[in-house]
Every structure is written in structure tokens, then in C-alpha cells.
């Protein structure tokens, strides 16, 4: 038995050795850790498509300093698998750079494995605060931290919606609903802390379990609380369940701000139809006002959107665009400057990056913290210039409405008509 096992291992190791290309210009190998199966698979696969487009685009442009990009893929279906897969890519394939990983718990896991092996991890979309608060040296979070989603949502409520609702900020009744996973809780914590600084009290603040199949108690509680604005952090399945139940029980709010994946997914419209119209979404901008982008970025952006839509017959969701933006920044801003491709060198390059907003396809810039962020000195490798905005589902599609700089449109349908008038 164990003889055969050894034989198998031996054969496989031979296989992996010989499988490596022997070209003079060796490609740059990057480990991509995304959930390709399991509950996160939908978004993971979208992100994977976006990343493949980025790879194809850079390779068609001749690669990075003449070296092609090659991806090695790991199926980070859950945190345990994420760690195993990261370890595998690092130890067996000799990967020195990892990227991914869409969801926060996976990002936490992947970066953990990368850090212990001294591998450079370029996190594209994971958001939980803890990712950059563990004192890791080689983990860089290009997407936004969780708090930033919440801040964008609250800023939008305070600076924009209050005016439209014709209420003083102090009188606004804001409710907060979060999905009890790493991302939802992290964003929820951020919002709670942030509204306190704005002297606003939440009229409702609760988490719910990811396997919830019945939203009745939540909707009923919200009806009791009767908020003007409801900020909800959800994943797709629960977002749909919630909206349907809100309609069923006639829960009306003047404005609804959804946060990230559940509300930004493009097929929310196919799922719940016209019920989406008027919902605000705080997330990575799927498509920003092109005027804020640098001209060369705009060209890349156009090509990306065209390719993505050609491939998937739908525009990219915010997280897919963010995945593309982040990996493109790695290809164009970090790797070209590297010589040894050692993690420490990459870290130096990353820390030196100072890209203004509008440099990345989704309107972000890059400037990483290094224990020097004013309001939180524990943070390292967090991108200060990640842009999270607010956009709105409209009859035609979606339009960026906040912050004013990225906006393509003004917010409409505020207050939202009641369900029976929609």
C-alpha cells in the first residue's frame, strides 16, 4: 500500500518537474486562489474570468518586461481548502506570488498561509479588517477594508440622502442589517463605529445567519423599527430572500442601501425583476465615470468591459472589476519594477506605490499603509485609496451616484415609492 503511495508521489513529482516549461524567458507564475466550487463559487468564477482577461491582455501586450504571466489555480472553496491549496501552490509549485481570493474568510486564510511561507500576497477583493491587522509583512489588500464600505454607505446617507429626504441628519432613522459572516460583521462593526462619530443612533442593528431560509422575523422587526434608511450587508441568496420578504410583508423604507456582493450582483435583476430599481449599492464601482480615469486607464477599461461582456454576455459586477483592477495594477505597477521577484523586494515596491485615484480601472488609486494610518496604527498593507462608491439600480441598468467625483448620475427615486405603488 504505502509502496504504491510512494510510487505515486514519486511519479507525480516527476510529472510536476517535467511539466515546467523550459523556455529561456520563463513566465512569471502567479498563484490564483479563488473559490471555484462551494457556496462562494459564483463570485469566485466571475472573478476568475476577470483575472483571465487581465492575463490575456497583458500577455498580448508582450507580458511584463517580455515575460509572460502564467496562472496556477487553486480551488479555495473554504478556508481550510484555501490554506491547503495555498500551501500546495507555494511548496509544490514554488509560487512566490499569490492573489485572490474574493471572500473575506478565504482572504484571511490565504494570506495566513502566504505569510508563514514568506510569500507575497496581493489580495484583490477580500475586505475584513483583520486581513491587514495581523502585522503581516507581505500581504497587501488592494480592495477596500470593510469599514470603507460602511463609511461610503453612511457618507452617502448623510451627505446626499438626508438632503433628498429633507430631514436633518440627527432625525434620520437608520437601520443596519448584516449577514453574520466575516465580511458582513466587519462592515457592520465599521458602520456602527462610524455612525457614532456622526452622532447618529441606529434604530435597528442585527446580524443573521448565512443559512437563513426565512426572513420574516427580521422584516417584522424592521417594520416595528420603521427606519427611513436601511443599510443591509448581504450575499446574493439572502439579498433575494430579503427583498421578496420585504415586498411580501410590505416593509417600506425611504431609501435602501445594500452593501456589496448580494446587491451588486448583476443577476439580481433577473432574480427579483423590477424590484431592484431604486436600490443603492455601496461597493466597488462596476463602471465609473470615465472622466475620472487617466486616459491610458480608460483604454484598458474599455477593452476589459468589452471582453468581459463578450465572454459572459453581461457586464462585470463590481468585485470582478475590482479583481481586474487590482491584478492589472500588479502587472503594470509592481512586477515591471521587480528584478528578483523576491517577496521583500515586491513589498518595497508596493509600499512605494503612490497612485492617485483614477489610476485603476475601477477608479481606485493605490497607497498602502504601513502601520502609519492615522486612525489605526495596527494596519499594514491596506490600500488607502481604494474607491468604494455608491451606485443605484435604475430602469436602464446602473449608475454611479456617489461620491460626486465618480458619479455618473444623480440619485433618483428618493424616497422610494411604497411597494404597492411600484
Amino acid at each position: 500500500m504505502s509502496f504504491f503511495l510512494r510510487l505515486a508521489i514519486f511519479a507525480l513529482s516527476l510529472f510536476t518537474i517535467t511539466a515546467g516549461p523550459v523556455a529561456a524567458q520563463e513566465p512569471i507564475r502567479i498563484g490564483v486562489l479563488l473559490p471555484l466550487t462551494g457556496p462562494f463559487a459564483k463570485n469566485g468564477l466571475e472573478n476568475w474570468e476577470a483575472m483571465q482577461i487581465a492575463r490575456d491582455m497583458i500577455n498580448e501586450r508582450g507580458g511584463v518586461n517580455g515575460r509572460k504571466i502564467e496562472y496556477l489555480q487553486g480551488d479555495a472553496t473554504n478556508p481550510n481548502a484555501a490554506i491547503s491549496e495555498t500551501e500546495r501552490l507555494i511548496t509544490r509549485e514554488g509560487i512566490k506570488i499569490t492573489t485572490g481570493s474574493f471572500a473575506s474568510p478565504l482572504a484571511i486564510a490565504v494570506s495566513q498561509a502566504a505569510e508563514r511561507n514568506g510569500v507575497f500576497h496581493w489580495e484583490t477583493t477580500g475586505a475584513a479588517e483583520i486581513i491587514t491587522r495581523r502585522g503581516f509583512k507581505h500581504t497587501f489588500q488592494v480592495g477596500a477594508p470593510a469599514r470603507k464600505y460602511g463609511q461610503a454607505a453612511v457618507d452617502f446617507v448623510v451627505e446626499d440622502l438626508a438632503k433628498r429626504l429633507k430631514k436633518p441628519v440627527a432625525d434620520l432613522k437608520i437601520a443596519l442589517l448584516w449577514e453574520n459572516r466575516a465580511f458582513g460583521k466587519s462592515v457592520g462593526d465599521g458602520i456602527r463605529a462610524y455612525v457614532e462619530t456622526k452622532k447618529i443612533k441606529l434604530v435597528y442593528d442585527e446580524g443573521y445567519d448565512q443559512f437563513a431560509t426565512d426572513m420574516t422575523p427580521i422584516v417584522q422587526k424592521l417594520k416595528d423599527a420603521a427606519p427611513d434608511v436601511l443599510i443591509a450587508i448581504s450575499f446574493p441568496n439572502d439579498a433575494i430572500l430579503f427583498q421578496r420578504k420585504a415586498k411580501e410583508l410590505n416593509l417600506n423604507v425611504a431609501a435602501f442601501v445594500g452593501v456589496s456582493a448580494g446587491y451588486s450582483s448583476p443577476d439580481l435583476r433577473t432574480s427579483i425583476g423590477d424590484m431592484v430599481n431604486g436600490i443603492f449599492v455601496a461597493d466597488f464601482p462596476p463602471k465609473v465615470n470615465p472622466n475620472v480615469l487617466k486616459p491610458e486607464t480608460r483604454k484598458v477599461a474599455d477593452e476589459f468591459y468589452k471582453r468581459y461582456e463578450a465572454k459572459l454576455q453581461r457586464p462585470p459586477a463590481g468585485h470582478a472589476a475590482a479583481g481586474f483592477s487590482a491584478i492589472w495594477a500588479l502587472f503594470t505597477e509592481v512586477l515591471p519594477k521587480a528584478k528578483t521577484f523576491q517577496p521583500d523586494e515586491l513589498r518595497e515596491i508596493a509600499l512605494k506605490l503612490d497612485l492617485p485615484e483614477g489610476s485603476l480601472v475601477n477608479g481606485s488609486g493605490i497607497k498602502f499603509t504601513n502601520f502609519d494610518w492615522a486612525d489605526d496604527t495596527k494596519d499594514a498593507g491596506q490600500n488607502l485609496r481604494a474607491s468604494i462608491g455608491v451606485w443605484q439600480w435604475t430602469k436602464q441598468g446602473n449608475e454611479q451616484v456617489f461620491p460626486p467625483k465618480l458619479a455618473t448620475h444623480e440619485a433618483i427615486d428618493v424616497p422610494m415609492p411604497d411597494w404597492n405603488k411600484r
Partner: protein
Amino acid sequence: MASFDRASSARSPLIPLFPQWGRVSIFELALILTCIALVVVRLPTSFQDVLLLTYMFAGLALAWNIAGGYAGLISFGHAAFFGVGAYTSTILYLNLGLTPWIGLWVGGLLAAVFGAVLALVCARLRGPFFILSTLAFAEVVRLGALNWVSLTGGPEGLSIPPVSGYANMVFTSKAIYAWIMLSYAVAIYAVTKALEASRFGYYLCAIRDDEDAAAAAGVNPLIGRTAAMALSAGLTGIGGSLFAQYFLYLDPTFLISPELSFQFALLPAVGGLGTAIGPVLGSLLITPLSELLRSHLGNAAAGLHLVIYSAGLIVVMLYFPGGLAAAIAKLDWRRRRS
């Protein structure tokens, strides 16, 4: 409980195949030596993570087998004990600075208490009712961990700083982890062998095979079942602590998941329930196989590796219900007959 078909009634069905020194057969000795050699030679270094996972799962499968294989307590809730162990040592380390070398014993002890509670709660249940109740029990533990944020970090989980050192039981070298996991597996193997040779071990088998007859032999079935579950849970909890020290990140939803519980039960079932060697064989076969399938087919098409894996599982379960150990023993039978 379900009795798995075994070709001969000997507890180590491999014995007739291989010469034996005392309680240890050459086969077992060779197996252990091979496992050690695989760590020592470090030939395929890149496979060390698969190797150490294989050892870890061998240990966990052996621990599960004490309850499931010997005492007939088929639990699908062992991930709860695994989680309790992992959380205990990690919380003690993060909050009190207690070294995981000690914390793992505390974790094991607490997991044993949980195990005893589960055994008492399910004292009257058998068959599918027992299985489903253990599943529900683990879910309650998971949701408890998820919502006791101040202790467990809630959904964001707990991270152990990846600062290597013997005191914090964190290492950069895979080989050290491989040694730790191997020691864990060998230790539980030794526990299992000692159990097989002890009065208590015989009591458990008796309870599994016929509770009435066991009672007539002076065995208190409730105490036996509780003790078996506590022992199994405690050893699983220690495994949880080791896992935490290797993965350095605890996420309640995936740590205490039915999938993991299922894995613990699957390995002994494939290898041979109620034998010492079975769980080891199961882990040696399944763990590398699933890791390799994922790494080699994961890229081809999302889900393909699990399709192949699960199809294989169905076939194995239907055609080798006694596991690898029984299959090998049968092989021997045929040889002797002809």
C-alpha cells in the same frame, strides 16, 4: 449498530498475512517505518503538506474510530470536538499566553467533556437517530462559536500570529509539523492498540456487538459508551489544537462543518471500521487522493475533482463495505483456500 463484514473474527485481520512480533505485526511496523521515512528522506519536499495532512487525518480517523469503530457510536458531529480543541488552545494562547503545548491538553479535556455530554444526551438513540442527533449537536456548537464573539472572534474567526518558535508551537518548516502530526497519529495508534488489548477495549466491542450480552457480562453500557465518546472526543480535540497550530486560522463555519465530521467518519469506513489499521489505510488512500485530485483537476473544470472523488466513494462503499482492511483479509482467505 451496523456491523461491518469482516472476513475473520480476529481484531487485526492483517495478522495472518504478516508475521507478528508480540502485538505488532511486521506490516504495521513497516507502515510506521515508511511513514517516518517519508518525513525523514524529505525526497518529495513539495509533498510534505499533503503528508502532514495525511498523518493528521490518520490520527483523527483513529480517534473517531474509537467511538465509531469499537464502541459502535457512529458520530457525524466530531467536528464539534475538533473545533472545541482548536478554539480552547488558541484562546488560551491568545488571551493568556499559555503555550499550545499545554493548551492542547486543556482543549482535549474540554472536548472530552463535550463528548461525554453528547453520549449522555444521545444515550437512548441508535442508528440514524444517533447520527442525526450528533449532526444537530455539532450545529449547535458551531452556532454557539459563531455567536460568542468575545471569546471566539465570531465569524471573523481567530488568527494565530505566524511567529515561529518552539514555545508558540509555530514552525516554518513543514517537516516539524509532519513530525508532530506523525507523532499524533502514532500516539493514537498506540492508544488504539492498547485499547484493543485492554479490558476497556473489549467492553466497548461488547457494547457495540450486543448490548444485552455485554450487560450480562457485567458491563454498564451507558458508562462504556460515555467513556468511549469522551476518549474519542478528547483525542479529536487534541487534533484540533494541532490543526490550529498548523493552519493558524480558525473559522467557525468551516471548522465545525458537517463536511469535516463526514471526513472523520469516512476515512475509517473506507479503511475498515473497528480495526486499528483501517483508519490509517483510509487516510493514506483518501487524503492524498483528494488533495491530488483537487490540485490536478481543480483547474480543468470547477467541481470535476469532486465529481470523480464522490463517484469513487460511492463505488467503494457499495463494493467494499468492510473497507480496505477486510478486502486485504479476504485476499488472504482466498490465498489460503486455494
